[in-house]
């Protein structure tokens, strides 16, 4: 079945990209064949192939049958699982409130005594680790009777998160059959944790089981749009990924369970030769770990039917771009591993997809630049190719150009509209306020992403260039009030995009005025980038975290573990705010009632 899904995905991408290239050839060769036309067609073909691949995943997801994985009856009395919570300069009260809520949720399932929690701190800022110890004591005091809760801090953060997990396995791994790997902002229902262990018990060849985490706690316009997309589209795309990847599934680094023996046997990551960004420690370790498990014959599976898995997302364009910069470097580093010995072909292709996810932006940018430069390179058309004959005017294939543009837009938009259509038949839209509301929100999200796309394209293109040059990101210092990106910070982070927008406008006006209108949807958002970065960081949610726009099912019926976490954190913060400063260790007082530090 997986073979069929893969065949369909490849066929769809090749046919759509081929059609787009053929149409583009008709349009661009109308005034004669030039070398720059070949370059433009090649760039467009690659870009459309990449977009079509994404669309094919959505189509596979829409067509995939419901998942019915094997599951054993119950978790054995002797089965031990450790839930690993790596932390790195996080707000400890918030992170530990997540742990407390998960312990309680497991206790409700009667399984808390079979799960241990290990907080693995890589924190290196004193103001953070001083309070970590305080909050850990409190966490143990309140919840230590339900589950065993451990804490350790590494003095040296060798290998970052992957090194942190490796360190745990080397020191304590032999005690545990399974490890649930989380992020500091992860939250999982106890029932989900238990079910994951059941599924591991039922399939002895299963090395890693990944869940699809939904984003929660978003407050800003930007965060809410991402939360909606993750809640509404991602399950369908993820079903497509699961169906296409089969037993060579993905690992996203958190909200997943691994078989300790399989992980220890397969995933000891070496340092790559040479200097960063391409040498040194492997940054995007999760993709590599999935590939190594597959190499050793273990199944890596994404079970999209598992609910009750949550994470938090970036709240503004700058935080998103910063995270993207790290992922970009990690994914480009995978180019060193494309030919690693023994890897399965699909694992290599997964690396290639990760690399392409970031190269796509500069390829689009090059296409735009080539399109602006083409009239200059081609020069004036020759109206008299043959002397003493009537003039020959070049054809203008405006209609075919419009079809091409509509086709590219369709690849982006159609999967989302099909998700709405399917939701109308399956009843899924009810969770999003009904079909009309889901459709309206989807249209809003499409407009939203279209406006922000040129800004993201610029950030990603810069990230790729920076990685290739070995340069750092160079972000302005965050100075946030009420979690909003101030205009100055937005300007500092995106002025160069504005300058780029104005430069493209001027160059198009000078060299290729006939395509000016085509480029306005790119040029206008770029020019307004600082304003958009600022405005999209504004808070959207009202009291209780609810919102009319971009609403999700969790707005109407929050998961019990989320409710528990919010209640615990509110109580802790309230009590901390009333605690006399003398009782607080270190710089704790500065933390107590404050929002999440960034």
């Amino acid at each position: 079945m997986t073979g069929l899904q893969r065949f369909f995905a490849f066929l769809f991408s090749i046919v759509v990209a081929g059609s787009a290239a053929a149409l583009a050839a008709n349009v661009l060769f109308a005034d004669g064949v030039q070398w720059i036309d070949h370059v433009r067609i090649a760039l467009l073909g690659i870009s459309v192939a990449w977009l079509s691949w994404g669309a094919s995943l959505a189509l596979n997801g829409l067509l995939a049958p419901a998942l019915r994985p094997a599951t054993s009856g119950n978790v054995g009395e002797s089965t031990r699982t450790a839930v690993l919570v790596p932390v790195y300069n996080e707000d400890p009260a918030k992170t530990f409130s997540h742990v407390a809520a998960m312990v309680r949720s497991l206790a409700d399932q009667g399984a808390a005594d079979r799960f241990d929690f290990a907080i693995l701190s890589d924190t290196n800022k004193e103001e953070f680790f001083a309070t970590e110890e305080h909050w850990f004591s409190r966490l143990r005091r309140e919840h230590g009777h339900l589950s065993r809760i451990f804490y350790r801090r590494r003095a040296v953060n060798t290998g970052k998160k992957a090194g942190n997990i490796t360190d745990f396995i080397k020191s304590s791994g032999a005690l545990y059959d399974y490890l649930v790997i989380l992020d500091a902002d992860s939250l999982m229902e106890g029932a989900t944790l238990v079910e994951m262990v059941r599924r591991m018990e039922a399939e002895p060849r299963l090395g890693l089981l990944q869940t699809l985490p939904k984003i929660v706690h978003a407050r800003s316009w930007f965060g809410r749009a991402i939360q909606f997309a993750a809640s509404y589209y991602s399950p369908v795309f993820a079903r497509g990924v699961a169906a296409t990847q089969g037993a060579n599934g993905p690992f996203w680094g958190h909200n997943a369970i691994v078989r300790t023996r399989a992980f220890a046997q397969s995933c000891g990551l070496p340092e790559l030769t040479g200097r960063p960004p391409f040498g040194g420690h492997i940054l995007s370790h999760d993709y590599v770990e999935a590939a190594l498990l597959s190499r050793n014959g273990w199944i890596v599976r994404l079970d999209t039917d598992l609910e009750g898995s949550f994470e938090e997302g970036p709240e503004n364009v700058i935080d998103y771009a910063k995270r993207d910069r790290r992922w970009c470097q990690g994914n480009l580093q995978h180019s060193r591993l494309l030919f690693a010995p023994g890897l399965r072909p699909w694992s290599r292709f997964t690396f290639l997809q990760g690399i392409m996810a970031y190269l796509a932006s500069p390829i689009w940018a090059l296409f735009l630049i080539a399109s602006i430069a083409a009239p200059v390179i081609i020069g004036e058309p020759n109206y008299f190719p043959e002397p003493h004959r009537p003039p020959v005017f070049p054809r203008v294939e405006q209609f075919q150009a419009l079809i091409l543009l509509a086709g590219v837009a369709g690849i982006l938009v159609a999967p989302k509209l099909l998700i709405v259509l399917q939701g109308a038949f399956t009843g899924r839209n009810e969770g999003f306020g009904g079909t009309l509301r889901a459709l309206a929100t989807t249209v809003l999200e499409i407009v939203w992403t279209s406006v922000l796309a040129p800004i993201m394209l610029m950030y990603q293109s810069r990230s790729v260039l920076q990685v290739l040059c070995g340069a750092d990101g160079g972000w302005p210092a965050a100075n946030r009030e009420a979690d909003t990106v101030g205009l100055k910070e937005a300007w500092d982070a995106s002025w160069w995009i504005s300058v780029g927008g104005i430069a493209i406008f001027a160059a198009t006006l000078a060299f290729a005025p006939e395509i000016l209108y085509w480029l306005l949807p790119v040029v206008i958002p770029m020019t307004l980038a600082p304003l958009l970065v600022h405005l999209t960081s504004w808070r959207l949610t009202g009291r209780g975290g609810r919102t009319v726009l971009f609403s999700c099912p969790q707005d109407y019926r929050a998961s019990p573990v989320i409710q528990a976490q919010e209640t615990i954190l509110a109580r802790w913060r309230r009590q901390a705010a009333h605690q006399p400063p003398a009782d607080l260790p270190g710089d704790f007082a500065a933390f107590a009632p404050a929002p999440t530090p960034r």
Partner: protein
Amino acid sequence: MNVHPERAASNRSLVETGALPFAPMAMPQQRLQRRRDWRLLRLLFMPWLVWK
């Protein structure tokens, strides 16, 4: 448990109650590079390297 030296004293109770259990497990380092590193990226980005 590794703790900052300045915090070690106040951490003693924590070590006794919340330190990780010692149950070591081997985690052999995997081989990811062939003996000869093909430096695929240099080939991919040859034009840029030439320009640089």
